């Protein structure tokens, strides 16, 4: 071995010594010389990402710090937080919740030593945010309450902390039957709790909230209030197991707004902790397949309203009339009914793999906005079944400038393509400098056999893609950013890190990781 080391040192030193001096330092920003060869990279870049502009350095425009986080805090067990090493996910410490309270979400400050957690209390309207620190060995201190309070008859649905730690941004939603039904986004001083409230449409809750390092730019997404999905392109939407009741699909009222892209339903079992789920939430939301060219329509599907399977389709699929004048060639909608079998874990719903649609609808182009994960011979689920591990987020992101009190949140509709296929969105974060929205994207809906995923930066002005920061896995969900250069992601059943164009596995994790469940 010493001989190998000696030869290695000798050879590398000989190469290194061929350079005797470094060129003068140049600090001008415009230098992009080591994009070699530019024309070739540009051509390939265009081929890969269509209209996406690939620029060297990837995260350059979103960067704040490259210090590697040492700790990840996980809130999956709710009764306690787990402090893990960011290198390998090894458990370092646990932080037990106060009796009667459960951890819901966790966020990290930029120093990766100060962490914040959202807790829900015994009452449905009780929630609070606590702060604790970890030392260099990963040992956690005692959590202390941050003096922020939701309004009366509201609870905190989601939150984030600005990178500089001066602001806590949280979303509140009504939690009492006689509440006024309005959601609020609150930007509060972390020390005093004083802040500004902005009334927003939050549906049944905030899916995610993120902020720039200085807290001035905030991005948030919301959860839909009911089992309403919007269909504007071919998609398969999954409904609950059939019952013997007549179908009743209702179109949107005339004049209803018509988004230009589909809004993804959420999978059963993926409701974030603390979020109230409707009584029907044990059944998945409906997913509807519409042939190309069908105009956008709101389709409300009550899980109990889907008719039983009929002939002409797969065993577990039914054809139901699409109750809107804007029908496609056949006027039909395919509803794929999930298996009644319980999932092995009790948390993941198993659906029959939809592989075909009636010829009248053409070729199946995708399977909902949920990610299906093929079971690979673990014996727990039949091989012809797929697991839902994740459903896409809404492409609707709201951006708020906290420094402009008079300016209401602005709606941004993200859109992008990979290899010519439209992408769905999986986790979105405001970049540290507030100039980009960083999102996980995937073509899994359109390219069932060959899903492609990426981490992309979007321009918050128009929702257009600005950079591809990483590409190389089939599934990616953005979970957290550390200084902008290091993106914590879920990829299938792994938690990993995307940094400077490479992916590194941190640890295994079963099932879907919701927003705010891990942070670094």
């Amino acid at each position: 071995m010493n001989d190998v080391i000696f030869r290695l040192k000798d050879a590398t030193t000989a190469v290194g010594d061929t350079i005797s001096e470094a060129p003068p330092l140049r600090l001008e920003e415009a230098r992009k010389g080591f994009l070699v060869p530019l024309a070739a990279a540009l051509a390939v870049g265009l081929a890969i990402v269509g209209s996406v502009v690939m620029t060297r350095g990837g995260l350059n425009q979103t960067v704040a710090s490259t210090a590697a986080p040492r700790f990840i805090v996980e809130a999956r067990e709710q009764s306690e937080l787990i402090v893990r090493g960011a290198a390998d996910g090894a458990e370092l410490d646990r932080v037990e919740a106060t009796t009667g309270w459960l951890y819901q979400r966790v966020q990290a400050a930029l120093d990766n030593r100060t962490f914040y957690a959202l807790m829900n209390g015994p009452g449905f309207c009780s929630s609070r945010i606590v702060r604790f620190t970890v030392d260099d060995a990963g040992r956690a201190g005692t959590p202390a309450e941050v003096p922020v309070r939701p309004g009366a008859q509201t609870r905190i649905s989601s939150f984030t902390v600005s990178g500089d730690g001066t602001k806590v941004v949280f979303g509140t939603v009504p939690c009492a039957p006689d509440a006024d039904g309005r959601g609020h986004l609150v930007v509060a001083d972390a020390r005093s709790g004083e802040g500004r409230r902005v009334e927003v449409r939050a549906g049944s809750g905030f899916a995610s909230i993120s902020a720039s390092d200085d807290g001035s730019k905030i991005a948030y997404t919301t959860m839909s209030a009911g089992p309403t999905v919007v269909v504007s392109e071919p998609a398969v939407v999954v409904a609950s197991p059939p019952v013997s009741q007549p179908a009743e699909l209702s179109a949107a009222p005339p004049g209803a707004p018509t988004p230009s892209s589909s809004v993804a339903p959420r999978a059963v079992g993926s409701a974030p902790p603390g979020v109230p789920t409707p009584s029907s939430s044990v059944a998945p939301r409906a997913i509807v397949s519409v042939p190309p060219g069908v105009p956008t329509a709101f389709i409300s599907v009550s899980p109990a309203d889907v008719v039983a399977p009929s002939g002409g389709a797969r065993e577990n699929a039914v054809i139901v009339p699409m109750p809107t004048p804007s029908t496609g060639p056949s006027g039909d909608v395919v509803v794929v009914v999930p298996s009644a079998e319980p999932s092995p874990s009790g948390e993941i719903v198993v659906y029959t793999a939809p592989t075909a649609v009636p010829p009248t609808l053409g070729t199946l182009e995708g399977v909902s906005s949920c990610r299906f994960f093929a079971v690979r011979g673990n014996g727990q689920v039949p091989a012809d079944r797929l697991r839902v591990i994740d459903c896409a987020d809404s492409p609707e992101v709201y951006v708020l400038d906290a420094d402009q009190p008079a300016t209401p949140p602005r709606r941004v509709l993200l859109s992008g393509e990979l290899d010519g296929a439209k992408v769905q969105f999986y986790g979105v974060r405001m970049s540290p400098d507030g100039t980009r929205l960083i999102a996980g994207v995937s073509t899994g809906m359109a390219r069932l056999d060959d899903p492609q995923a990426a981490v992309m930066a979007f321009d918050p002005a128009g929702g257009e893609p600005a950079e591809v920061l990483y590409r190389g896995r089939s599934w990616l969900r953005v979970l957290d950013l550390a200084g902008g250069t290091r993106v914590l992601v879920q990829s299938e059943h792994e938690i990993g890190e995307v940094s400077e164009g490479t992916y590194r596995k941190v640890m295994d994790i079963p099932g879907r990781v919701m927003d705010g469940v891990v942070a670094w």
Partner: protein
Amino acid sequence: MQAETVDIALSSGDRDEAISRLYEEHALGLTRLALIMVGDRESAEDAVQDAFLGLHRRWRLLRDPAAAVPYLRSSVLNNARSVLRRRRLPSWFAGAYDPPVWSAESAALLGAERREVLEALHRLPQRQREALLLRYYAELSEEETAQAMGVSRGTVKSTTSRALDALGRILGENA
């Protein structure tokens, strides 16, 4: 609550001076390291320049001036990875790019035996190659290597061990 980022409060002039000083002290070593990784001087110099440019942009966010050098090492590594990754792209339609250090023109300069080691080194997985270079060329400690690579010290130890085994095997095969 205190701000999480401690601004070291240097003026832009102080910043430029500090970075210039760092460049004087470390640019040559980093360029040599990058050269071994990417194989050609121009790319190596650009990787280092870009690292300093990045440091210049982010200086305000640097919590500890002592972290500047580890940052630069890590940044050079990342930039070198980007060079290697992008170098693969043109080969799809323009043939593989063979940088000077790995090409025949370097044979006379380096000697056959050294070239054999370098070729073996570049047959290793990227992470193993980086671990070997940081440990045995740059002579960093395991802790410093871990910091530069963004991995744990244990990972550095195991990766280095595997890399040495693999390098020995490749060189043995060629013997």
